[in-house]
């Protein structure tokens, strides 16, 4: 197995991502609708970390029907080791191109065919940025955080994704080269991701599988990383249950298993608040002392103070994470500014 030097491989990926973004410029320039969104977040955790982040998004639709989405993010975190505020973006104090893709959705005879090309989040399980960033939780699930031998929520693909089927049952496949941001950076290679999603009334269930390269050092991480997951969401009367269970190997000779279950309550009686609860666990089977068995329980709320301004509060209790305190409280303020240029002529 030959692995490219990490820094040169990363440069290649950055160039590929920049090329993908540039390829979208003509689409954006010829757009008939275009929106710009800036989200600012400031947060503090009782574990001693503070965070600030900005995300800029540009998205819309060209006259040809091609939709485009470009997103960049900057985020920095101070203090000691913590996974606070890492729900959707890496905190490395640098600007990252998160997504840059063109998307076309076809509806032949009621069927659904979506084609996406460029740089996008790895379509495994519950993976959209909005599912992470604005759902009321300020930390990524343990099984989706890049520091825990799991499936990072900042895995990105530079490639092509196709979704085909009918709205209630479709399969999404993606082929691409890793374009990750954050601490978990996979080496060059070909990723294969497949996800089957079915929905019936208020229940949405998905099964995903990915085969990729390990992001750990090639000195000890051999073979492929391979994960299979099942995810489900159910929502009725403002009460949502959602969760994922993921199992697989981060590299040969190891196994990671874990999942989370979220309860979100968003009912008129709570006014502008969405109450959230999460129970989760993570098991990383490896030779001691590298094995990791963690549990975390989170309760919190996301409160819309004004339409664009929200405050999120989480309190959590955890065990099995050696460098983190057993209890913590996180608070973050998010302001989203949006400019819509509708029907540009």
């Amino acid at each position: 197995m030959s692995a490219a030097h990490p820094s040169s491989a990363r440069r290649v990926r950055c160039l590929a991502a920049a090329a993908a973004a540039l390829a979208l410029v003509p689409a954006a320039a010829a757009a008939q609708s275009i929106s710009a969104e800036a989200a600012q977040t400031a947060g503090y955790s009782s574990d001693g970390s503070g965070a600030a982040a900005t995300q800029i998004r540009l998205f819309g639709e060209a006259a040809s029907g091609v939709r485009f989405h470009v997103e960049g993010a900057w985020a920095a975190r101070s203090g000691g080791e913590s996974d606070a505020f890492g729900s959707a973006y890496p905190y490395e104090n640098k600007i990252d191109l998160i997504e840059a893709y063109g998307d076309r959705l076809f509806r032949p005879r009621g069927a659904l065919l979506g084609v996406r090309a460029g740089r996008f989040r790895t379509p495994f399980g519950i993976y959209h940025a909005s599912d992470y960033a604005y759902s009321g939780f300020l930390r990524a699930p343990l099984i989706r955080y890049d520091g825990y031998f799991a499936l990072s929520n900042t895995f990105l693909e530079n490639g092509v994704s196709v979704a085909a089927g009918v709205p209630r049952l479709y399969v999404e496949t993606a082929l691409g080269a890793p374009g990750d941001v954050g601490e978990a950076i996979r080496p060059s290679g070909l990723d294969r991701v497949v996800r089957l999603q079915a929905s019936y009334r208020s229940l949405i269930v998905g099964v995903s599988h990915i085969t990729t390269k390990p992001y750990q050092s090639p000195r000890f991480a051999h073979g492929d990383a391979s994960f299979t997951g099942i995810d489900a969401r159910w929502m009725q009367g403002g009460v949502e249950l959602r969760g994922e269970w993921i199992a697989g190997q981060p590299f040969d000779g190891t196994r990671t298993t874990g999942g989370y279950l979220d309860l979100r309550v968003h009912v008129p009686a709570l006014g502008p608040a969405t109450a959230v609860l999460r129970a989760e666990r993570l098991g990383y089977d490896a030779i001691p002392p590298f094995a990791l068995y963690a549990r975390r329980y989170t309760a919190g709320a996301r409160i819309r103070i004004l339409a664009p301004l929200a405050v999120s509060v989480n309190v959590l209790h955890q065990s099995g994470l050696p460098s983190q305190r057993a209890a913590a409280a996180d608070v973050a303020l998010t302001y989203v500014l949006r400019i819509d240029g509708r029907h540009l002529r």
Partner: protein
Amino acid sequence: MAVHGRTAMMRIFVTAVLVISGADGTAAPRLSLVRAPTRLAAQPAAPGHTREGAPAGPTMDLVGVIRSGGRPQADAVVWLDAPDAPPSAPRRAVLDQRNLTFEPHVLVVRVGTTVELPNNDRVFHNVFSFHDGKRFDLGLYPAGTSKRLVFDRPGLSRVFCNIHPGMAAYILAVDTPYFAVSDANGRFSIRAVPRGAYTYHAWRPGGRTITGSVAGDEAPFEVSLP
């Protein structure tokens, strides 16, 4: 067979028009919001209207401009009181979710209208409205699917997506068939209104509703919002 043939030809024609209208990049093919009126069951005609609900006498088009702070106001709504207007056939309107945006930003419907809320994105949306107007939470639903609501009483619903904080829209249900939304230049047009004087109401997003009166022969119809 002949009927089916005509229907098929009509579909081809409509499809061609949609394709052509969007082909030059100047206009997107957008679905018409309102289903063609179906014939009403036999019922007494409302004053000033035919049994089918159309105005019986002479009509006028009320054309005007809405300004706010002296500048043209887009997405503002004007509607006329018309207590004698007959009920209309069931109507449908669409509030699309596309490109992480509600389209249109302001949707006005007559009371009794069914509003479809399709998700035409590849992400989930969770549409809700908790204040004023009609209260609802449609839950999560995936790409290519749709949910619907009947707006059965007048009021303003502020509509959001619970997982996309930048998405916002308004659905205003009014108890009259005579209403319009202003374009980017503040212009609006309410067509086929029975001649006469009316009490009108006007509103813009983020503003309060004002009330005034307008005579049929008033031209142009100017509305100033605070």
